[in-house]
């Protein structure tokens, strides 16, 4: 009996039902071999997380999610999932914050991070709710359409959204240089287990999407980051098994990113247990 691929959505707080709707749409398009099926589950406990092959950390309030995770004894198992076993994980908005190795503008006293992405995320970079916005995003990584027509831009929904403020050096262990600043919090180090997982750690951070027109605070840091002046604010990144978006695909009716990510999950798991 071929095993289902179980994708969990962390359901501690936030917009998790919205992800299920798009995952179900996307599952119809991403066909698995050997009669395997997609199975999507809510994750609130270690036991539920243990069943998962891949995980989505949804939008919500990152401080609330982080505190509830800690009190539900899920923080370490999550780090184990993302950083030790290096299973496919995608974070949207609050999820991106939690998956960053470093973050700033967190609450007084900081907050716990899971880590996995060698980036520094600026929480609520785009401001309060009255500054929330929508913007068309060009996403070159989306699967090209079969009819050859250019992909429509994706409607990026940014709600009190964070941004990837800095790409950090890809290293094993903690981002100690980041910790030197009082403003930043960092994720604790976890050693990857197994060759495949170890490979993921040293993957480069890929910029997957930017907002056209670099804005505000990032402008002066462009040169220091060694990026071109016209690249724009970084709103989606990928490093090995970890993917993060600062916007909310789950608030649209557009399942293209979910389709792409399930393809990624399928590929990543394929090299692990393709013979099953």
């Amino acid at each position, binding site marked *: 009996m071929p095993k289902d691929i179980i994708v969990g*959505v962390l*359901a*501690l*707080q*936030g*917009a*998790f*039902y*919205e992800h*299920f*709707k798009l995952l*179900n749409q996307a599952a119809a398009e991403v066909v698995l071999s050997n009669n395997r099926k997609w199975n*999507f*589950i*809510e994750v*609130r*406990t270690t036991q539920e997380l243990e069943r998962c092959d891949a995980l989505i950390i949804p*939008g*919500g*309030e990152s*401080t*609330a999610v982080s*505190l*509830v995770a800690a*009190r*539900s004894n899920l923080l370490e198992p999550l780090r184990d999932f993302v950083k030790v076993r290096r299973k496919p994980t995608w974070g949207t*908005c*609050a999820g991106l914050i939690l998956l960053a190795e470093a973050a700033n*503008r*967190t*609450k*007084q*006293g900081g907050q716990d991070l899971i880590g996995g992405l060698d980036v520094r995320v600026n*929480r*609520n970079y785009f*401001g*309060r*709710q*009255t*500054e*929330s*916005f*929508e*913007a*068309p995003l060009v996403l070159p990584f989306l699967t090209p359409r079969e009819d050859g027509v250019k992909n429509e831009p994706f*409607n990026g*929904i940014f*709600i*009190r959204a964070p941004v990837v403020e800095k790409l950090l050096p890809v290293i094993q262990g903690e981002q100690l240089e980041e910790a030197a600043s009082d403003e930043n919090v960092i994720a604790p180090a976890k050693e990857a287990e197994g060759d495949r997982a170890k490979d993921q750690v040293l993957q480069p951070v890929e910029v997957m999407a930017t*907002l*056209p*027109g670099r*804005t*505000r605070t990032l402008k002066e840091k462009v040169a220091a980051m060694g990026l071109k002046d016209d690249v724009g604010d970084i709103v989606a990144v990928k490093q090995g098994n970890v993917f993060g978006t600062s916007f*909310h695909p789950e*608030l*649209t*009716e557009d399942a293209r990113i979910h389709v792409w990510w399930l393809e990624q999950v399928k590929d990543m798991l394929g090299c692990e247990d393709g013979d099953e």
Partner: protein
Amino acid sequence: MAINNDGPSSTSTAANGTASHLPPTTSTNPPPTTTSTSSQPPSFTIKAGLAQMLKGGVIMDVVNATQARIAEESGACAVMALERVPADIRAQGGVARMSDPSMILEIMSAVTIPVMAKARIGHFVECQILEAIGVDYIDESEVLTPADMLHHVEKGGFRTPFVCGCRNLGEALRRIEEGACMIRTKGEAGTGDVVEAVRHMRTVTGEINRAKGMGEEELRVYAKELNAPFHLLKQTAELGRLPVVNFAAGGVATPADAALMMQLGCDGVFVGSGIFKSGDAVKRAKAIVQAVTHFRDPKVLAEVSSGIGEAMVGLNVGKMGEGEKLAGRGW
């Protein structure tokens, strides 16, 4: 078995793409790096979207920065800034108004989670002020003394989204028609008695269930009966739930109360006087947050309900006169 009818298999997301008829929305995207300089209000998706991010969370009433920090550390997904919690408004009487903006700003600078604030029913200038200082959500609330006995605020034109109270489906849909992007069942604020919150949630759910079985002709009649806009009633019947996020409010005092409301199908919980009028606010706040996440897990609920000090003393709603109830405010 939970009564919550929303779930991964039968999910019907709130508000998504279903609200194009709601006034007034923008059909074009604002410029990518828009700020509050834009004169057009953000789309319904953006305004309702923040409420979607608050789901599965607890929004706590706070009267100063210290309480706001306690709420944030306990895992609240947002705070409601107000001068007096409902229990004190009841006890002290007098006219209850919008809070001093400087006090709200102090709370906004103390925490990084969203900050909501209350305006009086119909008092659109209080709403303009709250929008100007940049609160994340405005609650046009029956807990404050109404400023208009006939009209509610036209909420669609504001950049800041609104949450409003309801006792039944008709009231919820009238508020959504006016532009509310989030609903809370009213309950009876400041009592610590959950009975009215349950009544209002059961009423809304019962009315939605009735509407779900109706054809178009019947829905037209039912819309008149409920005094609700037909198009919103039809949308609600199709979705099988309110077209926006719906939190419970008014009387939640214990972790069990919070989980009860979640199992009855609400998306999250407002706790007003229940936390800071209890024996140990820190413990109780954390416990209610855990209860809302693990609302279907009686073992966790037993654990978090243990040794958290005394609940607020409370007022028995059954012994109150109709005139003393706040829920009757709103039209």
